[in-house]
């Protein structure tokens, strides 16, 4: 995922994108949690069609991002080199690497919340995107835990059941 701006927590990402106008920055972003990722990749998953509908909907919004934190890929056991995962590239699903700064932010976010490490990285990713002006929706099967973490952020993130 291409990052440009500095978040409110002071994290500075790489400077690889062109500058965005304020209007252009207001775009849609989707963050996939474990089951959402599996549903996107596996045609036999009961929520596969639901994920196709989400991806289809993103094509109706200009510059819509669809991302997956790399920790989620580890938990879901999805390798991009696997034949089953080639669809991720076609569908424009981008990785958000777990950098040191993001790990620190995820730790802060999830401290004392009794949630999984991966949940922390998912909400941290969503928070980072929201801070950059994206309208963020997280798709998960674990709405309760993610809602709890979302309550710890000051950003307008939506959490939806996959």
């Amino acid at each position: 995922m291409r990052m440009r701006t500095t978040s409110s927590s002071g994290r500075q990402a790489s400077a690889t994108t062109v500058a965005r106008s304020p209007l252009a920055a207001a775009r849609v972003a989707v963050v996939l949690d474990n089951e959402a990722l599996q549903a996107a990749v596996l045609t036999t998953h009961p929520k596969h069609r639901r994920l196709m509908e989400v991806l289809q909907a993103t094509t109706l919004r200009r510059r819509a991002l669809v991302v997956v934190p790399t920790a989620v890929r580890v938990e879901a056991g999805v390798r991009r080199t696997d034949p089953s995962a080639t669809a991720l590239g076609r569908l424009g699903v981008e990785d958000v690497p777990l950098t040191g700064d993001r790990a620190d932010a995820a730790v802060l976010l999830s401290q004392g919340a009794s949630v999984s490490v991966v949940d922390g990285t998912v909400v941290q990713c969503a928070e980072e995107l929201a801070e950059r002006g994206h309208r963020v929706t997280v798709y998960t099967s674990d709405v309760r835990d993610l809602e709890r973490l979302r309550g710890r952020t000051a950003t307008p993130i939506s959490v939806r059941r996959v």
Partner: protein
Amino acid sequence: MRSMARTTRPSRLLDELATALAAAEGPSAVTSFRQPESLRRAAQVAVALGWAPTANEGVVASLRDDLLAFCRSAAVELHGREVPEARPSLAGTALALAELDHDPLADEPKLIERAAAEIVSVRPDADADDVLVWAASLRHHRGA
């Protein structure tokens, strides 16, 4: 378990497109891309209005965004042909769109289903945005 991986020619081309897009931050090349003079002028004016730092950056970013959307849309369409049960429904896409927009209609799936069923009778080529407008109208009249 079945995966989305396919080795048909269109899917190979889509993979090639996706790979090229993923590497789009690499070296640049000067091309002889022809554009209408009026469009070139429009881009210059748009830059003055804040569209992008330069016309070149704006064109490159717009082209990348367009190709990404095209690639995703084509991938979903191709997959729907290969696996018909995975083809997105109009109501389901409209519900997802409401979710992405953080529209309160996202909490009214039945209303969206009704709107999707009704709108195609008057507009067979309706898309998810049209469904949401119809659903908003239904909601408005329900409350009136």
